[in-house]
């Protein structure tokens, strides 16, 4: 029960994109299509789960004054490992996301959860927090990517729904990301009453 609560906390109540408004750079940068948003969300989730777990395990060994550098080293190593694994075993995904993978290091969701959750809670709770926040991030990015892809190119997950010529190119470009995200946050807040 406790774990479920932590899980749903990350998906809805503390959704990193809609509520905490953290990690805006990859959110706006990678969501030009639903599949890109989803891959980015899943990659971030993988790093988040491991970083939360490791940081929660080593939290009492790390003196307060060097905790940020220690966490950054842990997170950067995880991201580099993830990058190498993706390059080796999922080269197709790596090809589309390559540029954004190293940027996960500076995604403030990860350091934010390390500080706000993993450094104060046990390893198992931290894993669930990582899954919850990661899922929340993935859902948000997939939604945003889907909306932008649909409005901008007439496709959804690569399947054409209406001819590309009628698409609003603006939504694939950077301004469209801001507009779509703004409306999406408004709708989510209204519907979920958060």
């Amino acid at each position, binding site marked *: 029960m406790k774990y479920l609560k932590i899980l749903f906390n990350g998906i809805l109540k503390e959704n990193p994109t809609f509520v905490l408004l953290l990690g805006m750079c990859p959110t706006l940068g990678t969501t030009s299509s639903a599949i890109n948003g989803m891959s980015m969300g899943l990659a971030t989730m993988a790093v988040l789960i491991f970083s939360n777990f490791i940081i929660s395990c080593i939290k009492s*060994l790390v003196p307060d004054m060097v905790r940020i550098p220690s966490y950054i080293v842990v997170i950067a190593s995880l991201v580099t490992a993830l990058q190498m694994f993706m390059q080796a075993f999922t080269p197709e995904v790596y090809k589309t996301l390559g*540029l954004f993978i190293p940027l996960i290091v500076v995604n403030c969701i990860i350091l934010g959860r390390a500080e706000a959750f993993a450094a104060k809670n046990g390893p198992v709770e931290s894993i669930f927090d990582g899954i919850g926040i990661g899922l929340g991030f993935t859902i948000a990015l997939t939604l945003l990517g889907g909306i932008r892809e649909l409005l901008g190119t007439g496709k959804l997950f690569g399947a054409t729904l209406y001819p590309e010529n009628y698409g609003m190119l603006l939504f694939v470009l950077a301004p469209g990301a801001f507009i779509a995200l703004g409306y999406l946050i408004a709708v989510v807040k209204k519907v979920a009453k958060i």
Partner: protein
Amino acid sequence: MKKLESTLPNMLVVLTLISVVAAGALAYVNEITSGPIEENKARTLAEGINSVLGVADAQVLETTEAEDSNGNPVVIYATNQGVAVQAIDPNGFGGKLSVLVGFSDEGAIKGYTVLEHAETPGLGAKASTWFQQGEKGDIIGKKPGEKELVVSKDGGDVDAITASTITSRAFLRAVNTAFQAYAGASAPDAQSGATAQQYPKSAPEEAAETTADAAAAPEGETQN
């Protein structure tokens, strides 16, 4: 368990330990992934060469590495089924753009593929399909030796990718570079007559410049 005090020795020891463990873990990951990464690269290249030449089983006979006039590496793969050239333009919208282009014996483009890029997904990243046969910016069959490939905005006859002119320019520059390297490399095969004068059998980059000037005659004067 109580937290460690923030004393200097404590901090030094902890940070050093964490760094050492992280470095060890990364070295291990590198060890197990470097093999598959190399294999992926080799497979991508083999598939790329086949697809740009439009054949199924091209065998690379000779690989020549050279430099273009700006000092970027150019790799020429001479196969039993034609020649494919890998060229780079460093000034794409997202940085380096690497293409592989296949040429027919007449110097026409048989096919191309984008090997590596960091262009915007949904915009510049379309380069991998935009210039294919039957698409809006079709460059297949064109001969860069007769007329350098330039986007229509700059007076050429290739339609640039919508909202991605910078990517399109970089892409076409890379294709032109590839052709120049191809023309330079194929020179020794055609040693006699006008061809030899047009493509002197010197270093590829010199040949490349000569070819470009031959296409745009007036500038040829300043060269000499």
